[in-house]
């Protein structure tokens, strides 16, 4: 993973949700920029459209409009799948389908968008690959041993890969879901309140995993309701359909006034 600098650029983002009694405007004409290696916190009252903004960035929001670009290339140059592979939205609710945790983590590699090698798959190209099931291909691209190593590196030694995902605690499920998206190595990670409902210990683990990813060059946008943890470089506030941005002053320096705004 080379550390190349790039910029994620969103301009003129608007979101209008149709409803029986007239269209409801969530936000209008928002510009947003984040660079690789940077962590930006997105805060604001609930219902202000923070999730809508992040899903719009990932082209997952059918009510949103605006122009998106990554490293100077417009989003229209990519299929939705290619775009979402680079700009990954991580939903608040961890959804882990499959019989084991390992299966759940391999889900992205069963998809066609990662079918022809992204550096993670090794060898056996050609005809034989066509006739193998996607599960086998995913197993080859991401063997259990590699998942284990990555999870351990993220401080998830407590998670057994062979357990059914259903048995995981809330904190473990949140970390597995985060690990899955991080393993896909997106350029931009849009984390939708991933630490909500976690105890301080787990929230701390999740935060430090993201700091590591950012150090490797990933751009990260976090929706947060917790008090600032000093990890963000900038803090964006979405309220009344408008976005205001300010620089976070070092470690917890702006803790007090940020709490006020988040409340």
């Amino acid at each position, binding site marked *: 993973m080379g550390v190349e600098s790039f910029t994620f650029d969103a301009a003129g983002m608007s979101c209008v949700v149709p409803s029986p009694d007239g269209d409801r405007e969530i936000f209008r004409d928002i510009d947003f920029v984040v660079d690789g290696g940077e962590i930006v916190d997105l805060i604001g009252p609930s219902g202000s459209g923070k999730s809508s903004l992040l899903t719009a960035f990932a082209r997952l929001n*059918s009510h949103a409009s605006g122009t998106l670009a990554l490293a100077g290339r417009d989003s229209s140059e990519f299929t*939705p*799948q290619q775009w979402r592979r680079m700009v990954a939205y991580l939903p608040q609710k961890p959804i882990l389908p499959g019989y084991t945790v390992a299966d759940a983590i391999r889900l992205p590699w069963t998809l066609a968008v990662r079918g022809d090698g992204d550096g993670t798959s090794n060898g056996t190209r050609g005809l034989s690959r066509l006739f193998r099931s996607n599960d086998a291909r995913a197993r080859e691209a991401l063997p259990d041993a590699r998942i284990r190593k990555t999870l351990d590196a993220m401080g998830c030694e407590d998670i057994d890969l062979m357990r059914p995902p259903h048995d995981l605690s809330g904190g473990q499920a949140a970390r597995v879901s985060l690990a899955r998206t991080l393993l896909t190595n997106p350029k931009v990670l849009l984390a939708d309140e991933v630490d909500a409902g976690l105890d301080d210990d787990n929230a701390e683990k999740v935060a430090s995993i993201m700091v590591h990813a950012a150090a490797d060059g990933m751009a990260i946008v976090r929706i947060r309701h917790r008090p600032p943890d000093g990890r963000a470089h900038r803090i964006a506030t979405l309220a009344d359909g408008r976005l205001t941005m300010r620089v976070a002053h070092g470690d917890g320096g702006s803790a007090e006034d940020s709490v006020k705004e988040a409340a």
Partner: protein
Amino acid sequence: MTGNSYNIDIWGLVVALTMVAVAAGISELMRINIGKTLLWSACRALLQLCAMGFVVGYVIRANNMWLVFAVIAVMLVAAVQITLSRAKGVPKGLAGPVLLSLTITMLLMIALVTELVVRPHPWYAPQLVVPLTGMLLGNTVSALAVGLSRFYESMDERRDEIDTMLALGASAWEAARPSIVSSIRLGLLPTTATLASCGIVTIPGMMAGQVIAGGDPINAAKYQFVVFAAIAALTLVADSLIMAMVYRTCFTADDQYRPPAER
């Protein structure tokens, strides 16, 4: 029809209706309150079957190709209407895909069963084509109704999973595939169950009919098998076709999930 057949006279019908009436009366005494519906349905069935008998009789005697296809066209239109009225929770505007998938399966059946296996003279032999179409439509209509209901129900249940899969780069087809598989399986369940149990616990209707009418039981068994095999294969074809045609109604053009209210 060779051999001796036993006719049912008008009194036979009266006895049959009386049986239903007695059963209905008993159900009223037991306060099951199904008597009225039972009696009404029985009368309707008698009228519909007699009408069908007259129509088929007329078509067979007329032995006219255009008349055969006119009857089949009417059956197709009725089948579409019944499918859509039985399928619950499906969006509007599915009449076209349903008609198309029923028509294709019907044409396949005429081509394969009639022209390849039985090879009657004339090739459009109404005595063969009309009842075969009826049996095929009866099966595919219920398979399509069950399959469509299950598909949309499953897509709504799996909403979070679909959003997660799309965020991880799944195409619309990949995100819908689990729902498609489960709905096709459910739609085919009665067909496979009939195939497995026939000849052991049941004598299927068509074979029973031929035997009662004095036909050779072995010949009747052969006919029954061909028809069962065709119905099983073509039900799968019809179900797959309809799924391929309608799964996109759950997605926007940009491969985003489209909630039921907006379909």
